[in-house]
């Protein structure tokens, strides 16, 4: 759709009504993964490897099975063989095969009549291990003599002579980087490291699963995508996907970490073995931290050439990222593709190594790969701006990507709003506040592709003219509110007359998860199309009633009306009237839409942070924080702001405190929220937001996804602010107080 066709005036879009699930969530009534029970239910407990890398010699469950109340024990022997590719990966992670690959890897599981009995029984399962050498750190794993995590894992992309833990290699770019570096007045190259972090959703993974010996099953589960759960669980268990009915609970956060399975098939396997009794499996926090989620850790070299006026002439990135002991989990391709995505650089080169290590299977985490890449690239750009005494926003505006720019990852950009975010950041009062001693300001921009994905939405007109919308994207950040707004806007009816339900796998065609910032974009686009299809039918019903051509009827303000004076004189026929008569005018009226939508709009944002660093302790206080991001169009601005603020807070945690700490024995040392230190209310100030609206021509209301980009700039913005405050540059995360203090004391650049 051309830009000028995007309506500027809306009745409902851009308003802030109460969210439909608000009442349930403030009264404790909303039902999450662990909140459902079933008659005859058993409870599961999982036996996990205490070793980072060990051969499983023997599993003896005799004593566990002898405990009164224990109904079933499952091990890998209870799962089918012969899987390949990602299905085998998923099965290997669900229950270890011959080798436990990380501390916390599931080895066996028990179902019993109470959670306490199940936990007792799990301790009675005797596992004999032969401990193998392990490797944790990404740079250690790159050594030629490192312990080999998965022998023979390297695919054809890996050049001969690469270290044995490199599973995949990639390179891409354009232009002539050597010539580009020659044109530069200043060339700098630095190495950056980021630690693995966890998505940190407060709700641990939980599901209630039931499966009979006939292979028919049901699951109630907290997930971002129940069709993914269905397909993956069916593959791991060797049953047909359609025989599994998966209902999503309310979800207590995912951030990418609940787009895949971890222990869900275990509940079904236990149920199948325990005569079909339902089994509830709820992870503890330490299980969540040891065995689910995290994102990759990264080691990155970046080289940039800049002219005295700030023009970037060439850039090169070489990234090494580990995503655990499973092939294909490292987001190194995404990281490289995002690294220079904010810039228009004529000469570019990227190289990436996917590295295996004895760590949990990485999952997606909000803009996977982009925050690490931004930390490296945006830190170096800032350092060069300082070296050349240039304003960091001006340099980004000078080199910033615009409509028509050939992106760093290949294709040309459509309509994008990076420049608008930079201009708004520069004009914001925060950018003009005078700073005091030990204070510093940091700026950084960030990018995410956004995603369309398989989408199926159904809409039904009720007998009273109210409307039900069935969607397959679980609501995490308020999408039911935004989908109701778009549907009501399209139909010309009140917001309150629309109810949006997230429905089970049997009720719609396949839907991808709520991921890739796609729920409001893709389910929204489909809901609008479904509403348009229903409108067409309602106009036809009115036309038939009036005895005129369907083309002579149009839809206006929630009613069918004759299109123009020549169509005849009839009073508007409201949606309520049409709905009340539909049984006798042709039957129920519904609209539906299935597609893998294109028209995704790329997302850019710019953050400005002011910090104060205590030179005595190394403690950093965030004085003020500004997020400016292009939403395309904000359907429900309060929840767009919420995405911006939440992304910033997660990024601040990643920058400052969050990290996976492993001991020399390869065991995770901080699998508790006390030691895995996420931001708390007293760590943060109010987070200022500016919503830029550069409408996306690929969506009927101009929506771009807003969920992910916000986590990207905080890492470098914070490093840049600390450098401005202290004169010390930190190039490894997290920038915890001891590290900042040590860097200040060393006096040199970190």
């Amino acid at each position, binding site marked *: 759709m051309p830009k000028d066709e995007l309506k500027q005036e809306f009745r409902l879009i851009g308003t802030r009504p109460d969210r439909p699930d608000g009442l349930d969530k403030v*009264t*404790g009534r909303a039902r999450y993964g662990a909140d459902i029970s079933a008659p005859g239910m058993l409870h599961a407990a999982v036996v996990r490897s205490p070793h980072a890398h060990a051969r499983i010699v023997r599993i003896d469950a005799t004593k566990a099975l002898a405990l009164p109340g224990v109904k079933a024990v499952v091990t890998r022997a209870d799962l089918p063989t012969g899987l390949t590719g990602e299905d085998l990966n998923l099965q290997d992670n669900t229950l270890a095969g011959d080798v436990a690959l990380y501390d916390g890897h599931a080895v066996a599981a028990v179902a019993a009549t109470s959670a306490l009995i199940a936990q007792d029984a799990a301790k009675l399962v005797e596992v004999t291990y032969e401990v193998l050498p392990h490797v944790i750190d990404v740079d250690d794993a790159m050594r030629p003599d490192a312990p080999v995590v998965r022998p023979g894992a390297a695919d054809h992309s890996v050049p001969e002579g690469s270290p044995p833990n490199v599973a995949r290699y990639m390179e891409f770019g354009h232009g002539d980087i050597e010539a580009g570096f020659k044109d530069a007045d200043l060339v700098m190259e630095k190495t950056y490291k980021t630690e693995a972090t966890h998505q940190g959703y*407060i709700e641990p993974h939980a599901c209630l699963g039931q499966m009979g010996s006939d292979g028919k099953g049901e699951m109630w589960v907290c997930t971002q995508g129940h069709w993914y759960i269905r397909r993956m669980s069916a593959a791991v268990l060797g049953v047909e996907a359609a025989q599994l009915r998966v209902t999503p609970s*309310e979800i207590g956060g995912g951030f990418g970490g609940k787009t895949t399975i971890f222990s869900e098939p275990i509940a079904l396997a236990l149920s199948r073995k325990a005569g079909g009794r339902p089994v509830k499996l709820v992870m503890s926090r330490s299980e969540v931290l040891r065995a689910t989620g995290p994102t990759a850790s990264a080691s990155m070299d970046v080289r940039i050439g800049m002219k005295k006026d700030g023009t970037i002439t060439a850039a090169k990135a070489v990234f090494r990222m580990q995503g655990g002991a499973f092939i294909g989990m490292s987001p190194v391709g995404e990281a490289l593709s995002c690294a220079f995505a904010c810039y228009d650089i004529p000469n570019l080169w990227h190289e990436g190594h996917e590295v295996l290590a004895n760590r949990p299977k990485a999952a997606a985490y909000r803009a996977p790969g982009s925050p690490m890449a931004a930390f490296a690239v945006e830190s170096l750009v800032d350092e060069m701006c300082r070296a050349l005494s240039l304003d960091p926003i001006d340099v980004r505006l000078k080199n910033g990507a615009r409509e028509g720019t050939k992106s760093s990852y290949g294709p040309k950009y459509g309509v994008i709003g990076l420049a608008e975010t930079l201009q708004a950041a520069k004009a914001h009062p925060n950018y003009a506040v005078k700073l005091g001693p030990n204070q510093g300001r940091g700026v950084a921009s960030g990018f995410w592709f956004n995603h369309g994905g398989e989408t199926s939405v159904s809409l039904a007109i009720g007998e009273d003219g109210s409307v039900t919308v069935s969607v397959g994207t679980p609501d995490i950040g308020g999408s039911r509110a935004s989908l109701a707004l778009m549907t009501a806007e399209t139909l010309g009816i009140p917001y309150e007359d629309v109810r949006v339900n997230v429905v089970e796998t049997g009720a719609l065609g396949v839907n991808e998860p709520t991921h890739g910032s796609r729920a409001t974009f893709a389910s929204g686009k489909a809901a609008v199309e479904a509403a348009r299809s229903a409108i067409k039918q309602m106009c036809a019903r009115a036309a038939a009633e009036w005895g005129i051509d369907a083309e002579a009827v149009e839809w206006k303000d929630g009613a069918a009306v004759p299109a123009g004076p020549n169509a005849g004189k009839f009073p508007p026929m409201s949606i309520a009237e049409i709905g009340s008569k539909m049984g006798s005018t042709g039957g129920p009226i519904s609209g539906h839409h299935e597609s893998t939508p294109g028209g995704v709009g790329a997302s850019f944002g710019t953050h400005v942070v002011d910090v104060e660093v205590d030179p005595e302790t190394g403690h950093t206080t965030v004085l003020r924080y500004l997020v400016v991001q292009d939403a395309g169009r904000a359907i*429900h601005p*309060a929840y767009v702001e919420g995405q911006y603020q939440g992304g910033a807070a997660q990024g601040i945690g990643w920058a400052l405190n969050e990290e996976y700490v492993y001991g020399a024995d390869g065991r995770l040392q901080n699998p508790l929220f006390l030691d895995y230190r996420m931001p708390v209310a007293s760590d943060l100030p109010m987070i200022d937001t500016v919503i830029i609206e550069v409408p996306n021509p690929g969506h009927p209301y101009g929506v771009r996804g807003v969920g992910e980009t916000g986590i990207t700039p905080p890492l470098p913005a914070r490093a840049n602010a600390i450098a401005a405050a202290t004169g010390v540059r930190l190039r490894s995360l997290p920038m915890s107080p001891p590290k900042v203090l040590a860097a200040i004391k060393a006096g040199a650049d970190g």
Partner: protein
Amino acid sequence: MSKIHVSTTVNGDPVDFLADPRETLLDCLRNQLGLTGSKEGCGTGDCGACSVTVDGVLVSSCLMLGVEAEGKQIETIEGMARGNDLHPLQRKFIEHAALQYGFCTPGILVAAKALLDKNPDPTETEVRYWLAGNLCRCTGYDKIIRAVMDAAAEMRSAA
């Protein structure tokens, strides 16, 4: 292990349940009494999702045993509204969009109410430090703090 009979009061109602001596108050509320509004996010008292008050004192119910509830007055999220009349905090959380996925919301509401019961006019800093024991991963806390401050202001003007 044999179970222990516990008599207590939850949200003003007398209740009885049988607790395994190892079960936490949170387990008993959720599994014995069906009060699943209190959530378990960590089981170690770090996230505050299980916040309740016991004889008026804010506690993490995952750190207290069910048998310790004998003879106490316990208040949970389920008792916060009076019938259909929401507590001002509950209304302000909806109004300010102070929740996204909402898993932390019950604990934060219970904790915020405990604050306002003690201190009807807290500063932003006081709210932030009081709620520092309640993790929220979605909101960055901004809208939560605004909702609590606004609810406090409304309650002061009504008082």
